[in-house]
């Protein structure tokens, strides 16, 4: 091994420097608002690859060398979850964004009524499950270092290397992981650095693989021919262990705190999932493509007894390719560091939000803590938690000091966090899941996992001694950790999975069925399960607080500037001057969501409740929450609206019937009116013609007089018949309308001419207002003139009194022209207004003037045929008839 340790150290430090620089540059770009690249789906997909840790980078080859294809199962689970993104991940991401979820513990707690207790339980579970995993990364890093320093005399002790690495990672995480306390504001620096590491580890593994297949061997066929059939004992792939591995890895991609962090918390857009759905499986595919060849080559060319977990390094070294080995080392380094960094961020968020902050709130309850800054406390506790978590991992590593093969601890961790799965799935898809049920499930599963898998993995060194492992707790055979209740499952992992998740799920469902969820649980259940339902608005509780108190709280959590900005925006939206908005329920709820992005749902809820009075749930809210009741309500509401519609139809039918009856009556009346009207002139014509026929000697004057009467009466008859004909044509709409550009002034002048004699006889003054000249309509000149003549005629006829005057004017209103014909006569009595447009309606009996009373009816029909109307407008100075006509389109 000619590669000097100093070169290795230098390269590592330079690489770390590059990572710091990339993170710093991305943070700066994010601050300047240059998102495009940082928010791309490629970065998102690459960041998900923190799934591939040092365990998979080195361990997959080791696993392949020991157990053949089994290692693939760890990649197939995530593949299945991602290609089914539409059904689970999409919902998870949507809920995460809507509820401003900060961690997996926050998600569970938020779903089950913002329960602080559940958050603590999940946090403890996550810490217990992740600490060994971090230790594993440290171990694999020191192992890979030791490969290069094996022959050196002054090589640093593994413990020392591990400590330096842990401290370096803690520093990186503190610098870039605690920039802001809103966990929902993405850590662009960290994510971009991790994306870079993802590329490095993929390229490193691919390079080693390509080198092995085409450098060491002569192509794929050659590699497989070198395989030692004894080494790869073929057994059936489909086995309980294989199924368990696929299942656990599928669970891990959702439940591992670091995976939840990158997939849900750091996601900036749902459509990125669409890309990741195929790109991430492709990444996994490429990562595992050369695992088998490397394992085969390692077994082939390396001396027997070499650690297969280090083949990725030792195969290139054995072929004297130092630079390739160095690249592979950087790949492993990337895998380990990215995992540790993200896990530390995720865990520190959980610990500080769900444990430190609530504890501090509880302790400071009696002090006057109103002015203390939560942000500073939170940042400090996050930083301390990061250091603490890495220290925990380090001590775990020192304590267990390389007990097992790398892979087993990884799987133990998978099963640990998988205990969250029943509550998570139930929370997303089952409204009746309750907080107590979730707690019972998680706690029981956690205990069974500890007892059957984690504690036995210490091989009798910690808590459980050898005797307990062999004969069971208290010497009870039923409590043997590897054969609980006498079950005979050979594989401890399968055994522990079946028991822990089995008991977990049964208790979760069973207890949920027998407990009643609180109001806030129901509220959150609807928000989670129906997250895609647009009609579910975010229902809120009725709470009251003063805006000042809310502002003080907001300043403590969000900082002064952000709080003021938020309040001002709201005040503006409410249309209030000044900074303080009305503290409505919606505003309080939105504040709570905003806070929960920083401190978690449970703490945010508790803090808001400290200053608000009475979390009252009104009856309507409860009804809206309770599903069955809501459905019944909805059903009855629908029935009600249907019966209302039925009643309306019935009423319409009655009306139509009445109208029909009225029409029938009108027809009869019309006929009798017509015959009456025709009869009068007919009678006089008949009697005068009889006189002419029977009287022999009539003088010239009387003769002329009688024939004039007969002539006049026949003219009247004809006119009457004409009018009736005209009216029936107009009413049926069959009348011919000759549209042309019509100047209103000309129409009015024609009407005045036609009625001139009448006006002179009655001594009426007809005035045409100048406003008429302003209008040109698209209308029928003759018909319009007919209306005006009729109206003028009426006005002259009935406008009795001294100095009778008739005014004709026009004005515009919206898209219409209003032509008013007004007189200064007595007007029309109020009770007669409705009748004037009826046929044969003559009001004043004595004022009969030879017309049949069809004029107004005809005029109105004409106006309607011209697209307008004719109405009577009551006025104090006389009567006004108003013609409304549409304005000509330009």
């Amino acid at each position, binding site marked *: 091994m000619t590669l000097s340790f100093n070169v290795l150290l230098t390269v590592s430090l330079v690489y770390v420097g590059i990572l710091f620089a990339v993170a710093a540059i991305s943070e700066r770009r994010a601050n300047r608002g240059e998102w495009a690249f940082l928010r791309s789906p490629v970065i998102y997909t690459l960041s998900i690859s923190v799934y591939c840790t040092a365990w998979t980078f080195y361990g997959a080859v080791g696993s392949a060398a020991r157990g053949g294809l089994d290692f693939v199962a760890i990649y197939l689970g995530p*593949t299945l979850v991602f290609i089914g993104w539409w059904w689970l991940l999409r919902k998870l991401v949507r809920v995460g964004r809507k509820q401003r979820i900060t961690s997996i513990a926050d998600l569970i707690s938020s779903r089950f009524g913002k329960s602080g207790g559940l958050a603590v339980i999940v946090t403890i579970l996550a810490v217990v499950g992740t600490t060994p995993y971090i230790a594993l990364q440290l171990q694999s890093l020191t192992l890979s270092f030791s490969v290069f320093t094996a022959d050196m005399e002054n090589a640093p002790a593994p413990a020392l290397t591990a400590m330096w690495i842990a401290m370096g990672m803690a520093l990186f995480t503190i610098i870039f992981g605690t920039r802001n306390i809103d966990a929902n504001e993405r850590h662009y620096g960290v994510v971009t650095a991790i994306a870079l590491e993802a590329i490095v580890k993929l390229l490193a593994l691919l390079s080693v693989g390509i080198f092995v297949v085409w450098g060491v061997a002569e192509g794929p066929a050659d590699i497989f021919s070198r395989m030692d059939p004894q080494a790869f004992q073929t057994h059936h792939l489909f086995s309980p262990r294989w199924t368990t591995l696929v299942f656990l890895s599928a669970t891990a991609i959702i439940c591992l705190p670091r995976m939840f962090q990158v997939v849900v918390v750091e996601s900036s857009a749902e459509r990125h999932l669409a890309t990741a759905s195929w790109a991430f499986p492709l990444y996994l595919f490429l990562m595992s493509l050369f695992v088998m060849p490397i394992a085969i080559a390692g077994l082939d060319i390396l001396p027997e007894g070499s650690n297969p977990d280090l083949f990725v390094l030792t195969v290139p070294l054995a072929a004297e390719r130092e630079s390739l080995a160095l690249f592979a080392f950087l790949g492993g380094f990337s895998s380990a560091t990215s995992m540790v960094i993200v896990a530390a961020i995720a865990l520190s968020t959980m610990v500080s939000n769900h444990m430190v902050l609530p504890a501090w709130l509880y302790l400071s309850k009696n002090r006057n803590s109103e002015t203390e800054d939560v942000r500073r406390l939170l940042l400090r506790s996050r930083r301390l938690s990061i250091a603490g978590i890495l220290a925990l991992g380090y001590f775990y590593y020192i304590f267990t000091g390389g007990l097992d093969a790398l892979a087993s601890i990884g799987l133990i961790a998978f099963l640990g966090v998988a205990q969250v799965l029943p509550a998570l799935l139930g929370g997303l898809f089952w409204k009746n899941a309750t907080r107590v049920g979730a707690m019972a499930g998680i706690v029981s599963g956690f205990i069974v996992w500890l007892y059957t898998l984690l504690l036995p993995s210490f091989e009798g060194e910690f808590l459980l001694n050898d005797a307990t492992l062999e004969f069971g707790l208290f010497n009870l055979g039923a409590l043997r950790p590897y054969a609980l209740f006498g079950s005979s499952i050979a594989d401890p992992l399968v055994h522990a999975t079946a028991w822990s998740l089995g008991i977990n799920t049964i208790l979760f469902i069973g207890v949920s069925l027998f407990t009643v969820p609180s109001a806030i649980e129901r509220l959150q259940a609807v928000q989670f399960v129906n997250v895609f339902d647009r009609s579910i608005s975010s229902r809120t509780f009725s709470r009251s607080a003063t805006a000042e108190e809310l502002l003080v709280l907001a300043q403590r959590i969000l900082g002064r500037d952000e709080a003021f900005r938020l309040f001002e925006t709201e005040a503006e939206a409410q249309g209030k001057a000044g900074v303080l908005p009305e503290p409505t329920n919606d505003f309080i709820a939105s504040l709570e969501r905003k806070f929960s992005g920083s401190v978690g749902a449970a703490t945010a809820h508790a803090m808001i409740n400290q200053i608000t009075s009475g979390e009252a749930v009104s009856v309507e809210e409860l009804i809206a929450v309770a599903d069955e009741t809501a459905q019944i309500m909805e059903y009855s509401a629908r029935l009600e609206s249907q019966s209302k519609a039925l009643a309306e139809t019935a009423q319409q039918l009655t009306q139509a019937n009445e109208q029909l009856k009225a029409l029938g009556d009108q027809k009869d009346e019309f006929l009798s009116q017509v015959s009456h009207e025709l009869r009068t002139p007919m009678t006089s014509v008949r009697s005068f013609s009889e006189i002419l026929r029977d009287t022999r000697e009539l003088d010239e004057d009387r003769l002329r007089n009688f024939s004039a009467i007969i002539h006049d009466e026949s003219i009247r008859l004809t006119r009457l018949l004409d009018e009736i004909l005209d009216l029936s044509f107009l009413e049926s709409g069959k009348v011919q309308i000759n549209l042309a550009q019509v100047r209103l002034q000309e129409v009015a002048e024609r009407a005045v001419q036609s009625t001139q004699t009448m006006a002179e006889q009655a001594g009426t003054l007809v005035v045409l207002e100048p406003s008429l000249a302003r209008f040109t309509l698209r209308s029928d000149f003759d018909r319009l003139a007919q209306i005006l003549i009729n109206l003028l005629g009426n006005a002259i006829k009935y406008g009795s009194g001294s100095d009778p005057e008739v005014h004709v004017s026009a004005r515009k209103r919206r898209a219409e022209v209003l032509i008013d014909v007004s007189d200064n006569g007595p007007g029309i009595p109020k009770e007669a207004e409705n009748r004037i447009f009826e046929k044969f309606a003559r009001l004043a009996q004595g004022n009969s003037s030879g017309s049949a009373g069809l004029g107004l009816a005809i005029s109105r029909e004409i106006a309607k045929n011209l697209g307008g109307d004719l109405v009577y407008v009551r006025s104090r100075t006389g009567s006004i008839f108003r013609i409304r006509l549409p304005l000509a389109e330009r």
Partner: protein
Amino acid sequence: MTEPEGYQSREQAARRSRKLRDLALMLPICGAIAFVSPVLDAFESANADIAHKVVYVFGCWIVLIVCAFVLSRALRAEIRDK
């Protein structure tokens, strides 16, 4: 005349999106059948050659990835961010 056509195309779009969603459900199920069922063992009955298994597993895998790619292109239109 335009209204029935619009209605028809809306109907077609709705049917297409329903089919896409069903396909999105089918894909992981197909994957599970390929990877986590006795189908897996059907391919190694007579001569238990590991190379055959490798080809089967990786072959199914890449087919699933290609399907997911095609499907995600189609489903992406259904996502409305904000």
